[in-house]
Structure formats: C-alpha cells, structure tokens
C-alpha cells in the first residue's frame, strides 16, 4: 500500500513541485488548491506520468471546506500519511498603517489559520493510524521579519511556534511535525511580478550560492522530511535559501 500525501497550495509553485516529487516517490497525492483548475491540472500531470492523484478545490481558511477536503481524501485513498501545508502567501507589500483589517486577516488566516485548520482535521486521522508526518511552511521572513510584509512575517513566525507545540503534542503518537522555510523561490506568482533581471539584481549578491531557489530545490527537502532518514526529527525548522540566512 503506497503512502498518501495531502498537499495544500499544490496547484502552483512549491506545492506543485512537492506534489510531483511525492508522486515520483510512489505516494498517492491529493492536490488541494484554492485554484481548483490548477489543482486539477497538477493531478492530471501526475496521472499522465503514471502516478495516483486526486484534486480538490480548497480554501484553507474555511473550516467546513477543510473538513470536507479531508473526508474526500479519505474516501479516495483511505488514509493520510503526509500533510504538507504549503498554501500561503504575502499578497501585499505595504506599510503597516496602510494595511486594512481585512487585508491583515487575509494574510494571517491564509498562512497561519489555514495551517491550524488543516492540522486540526488531519491529526486525529494520523493518531488513529499511529503515525504520520506534517510539514508546515514558513519563510526566512518568519525569522528575520520583513519591511512591508508585517502580517506575513508574523504569520510565518507563528507557524514556526505552532509547529513546535504540535510536535510536542503529537510525538507520542509517532507523528512528526516540522517546518520548511523557503527563501526567495522562483514561483510563477513572484515571477509574474518581477523580471528575471530585477530578481537577479535584488537577490543574487545576497545569496552565497548565487541564485534564487527553484521549487524543485524545496521539494527535495519536503520529501526528505517524509522519509525514514528523518525519523528522529520533529519540531524543527529547516531553512532552504542558498545561504541567504
């Protein structure tokens, strides 16, 4: 029986690369994304490549949708061994006094509350199975802070502490919970806002390895954290940023 992974934000960028990496390793993959079409597309790519996949349109900030997504995933594959919470985003770059309450809540809820809701629904499934791995997604900004991205930095720092707490709560059930912190990564969402040249200028000198990250770089780290090689690792933060931080 192959392991089953549920990936939020799986329709694009890092989530998409993670879905492909997991599928290539033989996992059955549930691709969840608020853009249902993107999730369908990634699911189709995986199945065309000979993998097993299901796609779900999911807004992780909606508890009812999260509950329904879990039911759907279980109905299809019967279990969940790996949960990768990748849905998130900074959405805005502006000064704190210009953020509306609604904008603030959108950033906090998508990143932090979404992670909470997904974990709350998935943990009992993993507890029944007596095992599982949860991978949450932070950012280098969750450690350093970032001018003009205050809610995003706050949400990501929140995810790091949330992960540690959950790791302690679930360790006795054989469930490991860790955080991956991507640095600047070439995802379609950031690449459409910035030319490759502007990106080079902004980042390359600051990154010892001399380039920004690729979604595939991150996918290898997420995958490592699902394997028995990481069996003794829980509650930890894993930066992957070319040495930026």
């Amino acid at each position, binding site marked *: 029986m192959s392991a089953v992974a549920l990936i939020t934000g799986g329709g694009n960028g890092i989530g998409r690369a993670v879905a492909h990496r997991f599928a290539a390793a033989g996992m059955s993959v549930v691709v969840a994304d608020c853009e249902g079409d993107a999730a369908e597309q990634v699911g189709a790519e995986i199945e065309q490549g000979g993998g097993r996949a299901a796609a779900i349109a999911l807004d992780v900030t909606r508890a009812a949708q999260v509950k329904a997504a879990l039911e759907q995933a279980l109905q299809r594959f019967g279990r969940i061994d790996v949960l990768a919470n990748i849905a998130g985003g900074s959405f805005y770059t502006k000064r704190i006094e210009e953020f509306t309450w609604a904008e603030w809540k959108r950033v906090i809820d998508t990143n932090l509350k979404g992670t909470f809701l997904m974990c709350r629904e998935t943990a009992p499934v993993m507890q029944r199975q007596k095992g599982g791995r949860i991978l949450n997604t932070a950012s280098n900004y969750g450690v350093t802070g970032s001018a003009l991205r205050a809610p995003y930095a706050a949400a990501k720092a929140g995810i790091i502490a949330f992960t*540690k707490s959950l*790791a*302690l709560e679930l*360790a*006795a059930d*054989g469930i*490991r919970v860790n955080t991956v912190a991507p640095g600047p990564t070439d995802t379609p969402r950031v690449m459409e806002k910035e030319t490759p040249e502007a990106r080079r200028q902004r980042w390359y000198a600051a*990154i*010892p*390895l*001399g380039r920004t*990250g*690729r979604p595939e*770089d*991150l996918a*290898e*780290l997420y*995958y*490592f954290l699902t*394997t*028995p*090689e*990481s*069996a*003794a*690792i*829980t*509650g*930890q*933060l*894993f*930066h*992957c*940023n*070319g*040495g930026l*931080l």
Partner: protein
Amino acid sequence: MARLAGKIAVITGGAQGIGRAIALGMAREGAKLVVADLQEGKAEAVAGEARALGAEAIAVAVDVSDEKSVQNLADRSFERFGRVDILVNDAGVYLKAPVIRKTEADWDRTLNVNLGGNFLCARAFVPAMRRQKSGRILSIASSIANTGGREFADYAASKAAIVGFVKALARELGPDGITVNAICPGSANTDMPRRHRSEEETMARLRATPLGQVLEPEDIAGPILFLASDAASYITGQSYNINGGTVML
C-alpha cells in the same frame, strides 16, 4: 538509487559511533571512502566493513588538531582517489569538568580538536573543491551548542563555534558551488553518553525524548546523507537539529 555514486568522501572521526554510521551509510550510497581517525585500527575495521559493502575505502590515521597530520590526510586522500567531494568533520572530544576546575590544557584540546579540526580540514580540502567548483562540507555539532551543558562548557563552546564557522564558511564558499552545513544531534546511542553514567541511566535518558525513541547513529547519518546528496544542492549555512524533539529552535 545510489545517491553518492562515484563521490569521494573523507570522514574524520569515522572509526566509531556517528562517524562510523555516516561512513557505512555513504558506502551504501556508492561513495568511496577515506575513514580518518585518531584510532587507526578501528578506522581500518570500518574501512573493511565498507569494503564488505562493495565500496572502495582506505583508513588514515589523523589527529585533526595537528596541521601536519591533516595535511597528510589530504595528501593520502588525493593520492588514492584524485579528488574529494565530501568532507565530514565528525572528530570530536570532550572532558567533563566544571569550569573552575578545567585546566588550560584540557580547554585547548577540546577547542583544538572540535573547532580547530574543522578549520584545518577545511583549509586542506577547500582548494581542491574550489578548483572542481563543487563540494560538500558537513560538520557534526551538537544540541549542546544551543542549550549549553553543565560541566561541558568547553564542549558547548566548541560546538556553538562550529555553527558560526559553518555559516561564515558557507558565505565564503557559496560562489564556488560548495555547500557547508552542520547537524546538531542530541545525545545518541554511542559510547559517549556511557562514559559518565550506568547503562540503565544512559538508556533511560536516551529514551526520554518527545518521540520516545532512542537516537541511533543511523538517525544522524540519514540527514548527513541527504545533505551530501544532489538533493540538497540549494541548502547551505544551516545547522539542522536532530534530537527526537528534545530541543526545538
């Protein structure tokens, strides 16, 4: 899937415990090994185990706190294999004693081996890695680097210094395609924790982690194998914590 096929790896402190697990793990992944250790007989035994797994392996006696000895290790490694792709700094020592009773000689030895060994080995192997525009340097630090440890002040200082050294070296060598990372293991099931405690007490302490499992040398070797592989080519300057959940940073 031999992730390290054809790679040449030098492992200091490779004769026992975590270093041995790393050496044998790398042998299974297709690497060719230089097992370097102060204890030559034990290093030769590990090289023999690696050969039994089908890997090419030699043993070299080294004192990583001695410039000439480290240079000899580098010479022997290049002589035998022509290049070095992976350097694992695992050689380390400690002497348990309260700070007020620690001798200067003991302090020097801990710092010279644990931290100085990282420096001398980097200096010996980095020029070749720069020329080949690739390389992996991996150091074994300790969770004590972050928590400190009563009567382990020199050890804690040396391990925290490794974390700082790794970050600096990563910045220096990144442009040449060389990554530098560390692992901070918690207390593992090796001879080390048994030196000051009974077997019963040792095992009780080792089991007292959130995950409730004893940290085995293989649990430390796994992440090192990952960091040595192509899968980790974008990771540098990090010190990952492997401790069953006892310390979270």
